[in-house]
């Protein structure tokens, strides 16, 4: 075996050691934060630890709250993944996603935010229109609006 091949195979082995996200099995997996069955393939999120353990969530809201609970220390988080609303069931890296806040979409935990692959929102006019927000804003929304109960602003209450 040539030297090059050895180097390539070692690199491949190393790459294989990188934690990869586990696909969410909709209808079978359960959200580790809220215990709800994960059923809507337009939503969902996953947190990977350095050791490669995958924590699955039914919605972005739950991932934010789970992180805040400190059950997994921040330094042990390897990566965060979110389901692409435009391609249901597919996990994409948090960094490659954008977030849309819109009353037209009812997310499983009631915050009405969905994640979508960067650029897809502009390209696909069928996606529900709303306000584009950053991940930081999603976190803030969860911690302010969602925790205090999303009920203010309801037309009937």
């Amino acid at each position, binding site marked *: 075996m040539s030297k090059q091949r050895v180097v390539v195979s070692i690199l491949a082995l190393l790459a294989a050691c990188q934690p990869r996200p586990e696909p969410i099995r*909709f*209808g079978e997996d*359960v959200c580790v934060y*809220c*215990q*709800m*069955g994960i*059923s*809507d*393939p*337009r939503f969902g999120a996953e947190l990977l630890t350095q050791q490669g353990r995958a924590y699955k969530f039914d919605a972005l809201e739950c991932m934010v709250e789970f992180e805040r609970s400190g059950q997994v220390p921040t330094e042990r988080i390897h990566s965060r993944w979110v389901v692409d609303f435009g391609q*249901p*069931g597919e996990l994409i890296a948090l960094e490659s996603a954008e977030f849309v806040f819109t009353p037209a979409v*009812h997310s499983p*935990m*009631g915050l009405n935010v969905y994640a979508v692959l960067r650029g897809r929102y502009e390209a696909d006019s*069928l*996606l*529900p229109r709303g306000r584009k927000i950053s991940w930081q804003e999603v976190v803030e929304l969860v911690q302010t609006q969602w925790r205090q*109960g*999303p*009920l203010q602003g*309801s*037309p*009937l*209450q």
Partner: protein
Amino acid sequence: MVRGRYGSAWYFSSCLAFVLVSHTSAVSERLLVGHGGFPTLQAALAKARAGDTVHILPGVYREREIDIWLPLVIEGSPGATLDGEGAGEILRVRASGTVIQGLTFRRSGVSFLRENAAIRVEGAHDCRIERNRLEGCFFGIYLSKSARCVVQYNVILGSAEREATSGNGIHLWYCRDILVRGNHVVRHRDGIYLEFVRHSTVEHNVSEGNLRYGIHFMFSDSCSYRFNLFQRNSAGVAVMYSRFILMENNRFEHNWGESAFGLLLKDISQSHVRRNVFLSNTTALYLEGSNHNLVDSNRFHANGRALRLMASATGNTFIANSFVANTIDATTNSTFSFNTFRANYWDRYRGYDIDRNGYGDVPFHPVSAFGILTERFPALLLFLRSFIAELWELAEQVFPVLTPMAIVDPTPLLKPPV
């Protein structure tokens, strides 16, 4: 009838002029659809005036995206069927006071972008949806931003094989004062779903064989559900993020699976669980983040685990419940517990009652050492009936090390109260 209700309001005013006006403007007509009448419902709606009755004769009408903007009674002879052909929504009610009764709805469309329902009530109040039959629809009856509506005696049969392609049978979103009664929901994602609902009642329904929950509460305070049967739903029933819920006289049966619960309470407070029957569930009652609830007079029979009490559940009171023939009576993931147990019946109790007052003279600790271990290492359940486990239990009874002393019933009953 809507007209009748308005009419009586006028009479109360006891003003003759008003009575005359209301009668002259209130000649309600009956429009027929099919068999020589209007060819389609939409054609009839174009001619209908507020208060009219549209009667649909037997037949299959391939119509969808039908909007109702006026208060009408839409009714059908047996066999009158609106078929959405698997695309879009069928009927959308936008007028308060509308009645939809006796119709069959078939195949509203599966979609990732829209929650297509067979009957959607959108911002309309005082509507009645009753005695309809829904077959193979994505979402069934969907009420949004509506109040004082009644959804009763409907049969809703989903065709769900996977959760992804099935919506909820009865879905309430931002509603209040809704009565959901006597419906039968089968094979949907969640049989009955409430989100941001207030002051509503769900009673005498059967919700079974759904892919997720029989009933699912999210952020819905001050609601009650009573006399319902929830069985063979793949995850049981979940009541989450709500306060002041009354759950009484329901049956939670045959919910089996790793993550199935007879009743899952998550972030529920100041609620009342009483006189329910939990039969044959993997976990009958699970409490997490739930505080200051009263759980009384329930019967827990033949469950895997009758009660799972997480560390985050505090201030709950368990009184006068019967625990019979359960594999494990109670487990917890903590050695401390700030919950009260009093006067429950435990068939495992081996104490005595010398003063014959009906209560055992020695306290009962429902959480077994082995139960605690299985919380930490679920695979240990394999050894549930093993010699070692029995020996361990015996040793724990003499020298408790793992058993949380905090969960204790100081006055266990000798006879089941329910």
